[in-house]
């Protein structure tokens, strides 16, 4: 059976990540197995008067080594760091998929790589040069580096993708929306293959100041669901999938990693920063409905879990509302405790965590969880990951503005 209710089925054949705890999927996974924390002292630029002095930065990423074989896209080396992350994660995913590049059927392939903010660090550098150093002009590539669709364009050029190519933008739900849209494109027969996910790299003086002024960053660390949690910790990175129509993957003998079985997306339409229970619950419910799964079928849920006071309690309440009694049996974790909050890229990285969890029957932990908040009373797999049978997983992404997106992953369909 290749269609459910006449619908084309969509599978994942490639995964790629760049994160503070590993710049490839195997390193990232290995770090999670060791409950490694990617939060460290902020650095890489003058900190001046900053008060928040921690972040989950990627400190060992060599873009020249990772992208030197790019041949069709001549200028990715000169792109913003966020495009480098996207290029490297897409490259890893494409290699794992075994797809030949440039793609054989360019108009039947999509490239949807979002970003919450695009090249903000390029912006800052350009404006410093103009306003502080009184330079006569910005670097000629400034505009191309800044635009939030540049990562999608770079990757699309490199792989010769001529179908729908653009970025999504929904703050912390960006990657999940990108993957959800790509899923729908394949289901509807617009394309057969898609590279989808998101990338983010905004840790600089100006962004830190902006986040600081919102007073939601923790000065100490990212402790989801813990009583001591006092804000999130900014991260950076990329998470990208290669997904394709089931028969397309089978025909070329691809190794199928998982199936994307459900997607749900809603908006709270309520408040820019205070989430409601209804929007997130409805997104989870729609994703389960789309997957034609009862809530009891989900074994592991990768929570949005930002470690802000309000998100973790609200998400816990939303999970209880959707899952009922099963909420207490469900293994839930926030991997942001390890890789920080990579904003738009979060859902891409966390999708990979879900897919790996099913592949290895092991769920990653929520680290730093020593004193659970009584208002967060579910099983968040504290501090150490767990071996368990994992057949279906859910990944939650909830963003500022009340923008919610949820994906459900299932096993590779039996041949």
């Amino acid at each position, binding site marked *: 059976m290749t269609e459910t209710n006449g619908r084309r089925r969509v599978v994942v054949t490639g995964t790629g990540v760049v994160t503070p705890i590993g710049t490839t999927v195997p390193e990232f996974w290995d770090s999670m197995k060791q409950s490694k924390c990617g939060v460290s002292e902020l650095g890489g630029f003058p900190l001046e008067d900053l008060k928040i002095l921690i972040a989950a930065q990627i400190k060992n990423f060599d873009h020249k080594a990772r992208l030197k074989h790019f041949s069709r896209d001549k200028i990715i080396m000169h792109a913003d760091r966020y495009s480098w992350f996207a290029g490297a994660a897409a490259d890893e995913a494409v290699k794992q998929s075994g797809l030949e590049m440039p793609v054989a059927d360019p108009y039947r392939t999509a490239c949807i790589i979002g970003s919450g903010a695009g090249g903000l660090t390029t912006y800052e550098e350009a404006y410093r040069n103009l306003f502080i150093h009184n330079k006569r002009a910005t670097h000629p590539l400034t505009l191309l580096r800044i635009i939030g669709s540049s990562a999608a364009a770079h990757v699309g050029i490199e792989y010769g993708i001529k179908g729908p190519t653009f970025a999504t933008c929904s703050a912390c739900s960006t990657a999940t929306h990108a993957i959800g849209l790509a899923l729908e494109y394949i289901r509807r027969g617009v394309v057969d293959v898609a590279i989808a996910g998101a990338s983010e790299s905004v840790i600089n003086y100006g962004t830190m100041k902006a986040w600081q002024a919102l007073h*939601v960053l923790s000065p100490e660390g990212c402790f989801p669901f813990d009583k001591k949690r*006092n804000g999130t910790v900014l991260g950076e990175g990329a998470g990208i999938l290669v997904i394709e129509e089931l028969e397309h993957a089978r025909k070329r003998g691809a190794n199928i990693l998982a199936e994307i079985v459900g997607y749900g997306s809603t908006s709270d339409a309520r408040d820019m920063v*205070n989430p409601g229970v209804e929007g997130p619950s409805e997104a989870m419910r729609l994703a389960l409905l789309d997957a034609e799964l009862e809530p009891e079928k989900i074994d592991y849920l990768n929570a949005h879990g930002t470690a802000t006071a309000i998100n973790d309690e609200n998400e816990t309440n939303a999970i209880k509302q959707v899952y009922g009694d099963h909420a207490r049996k469900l293994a839930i974790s926030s991997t942001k405790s390890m890789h920080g909050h990579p904003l738009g890229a979060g859902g891409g990285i966390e999708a990979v965590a879900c897919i790996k969890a099913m592949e290895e029957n092991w769920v990653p932990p929520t680290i730093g969880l020593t004193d659970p908040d009584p208002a967060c009373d579910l099983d968040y797999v504290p501090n150490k990951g767990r071996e368990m049978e994992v057949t279906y997983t859910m990944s939650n992404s909830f963003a500022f503005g009340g923008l919610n997106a949820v994906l459900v992953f299932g096993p590779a369909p039996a041949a």
Partner: protein
Amino acid sequence: MDEVASKIVDILKKHMKEPRDDIALSTELQDLSIESLDLAMIVFDIEDTFGIEIPYNANEDVEDFKTVGSVVDKVRALVEASSGGAAAAKA
């Protein structure tokens, strides 16, 4: 109300949808329907007005932001701390 207090009340009123004239030191911020984003903007305005920095984290319930009076006390303490002995001598 002294100058610090009336400046703070003015800032609060600026950020209220329906400014009231009955704001006292004992008024609770909660009763002024001030929400988290409003508070971030109010803190910013106060910092600019008094040339101070207020330690504030939206994730924590802080006593300093319970009533108008507690905000005034906090600001007064920070102003004194930042201007040191000079302000104390003038007062």
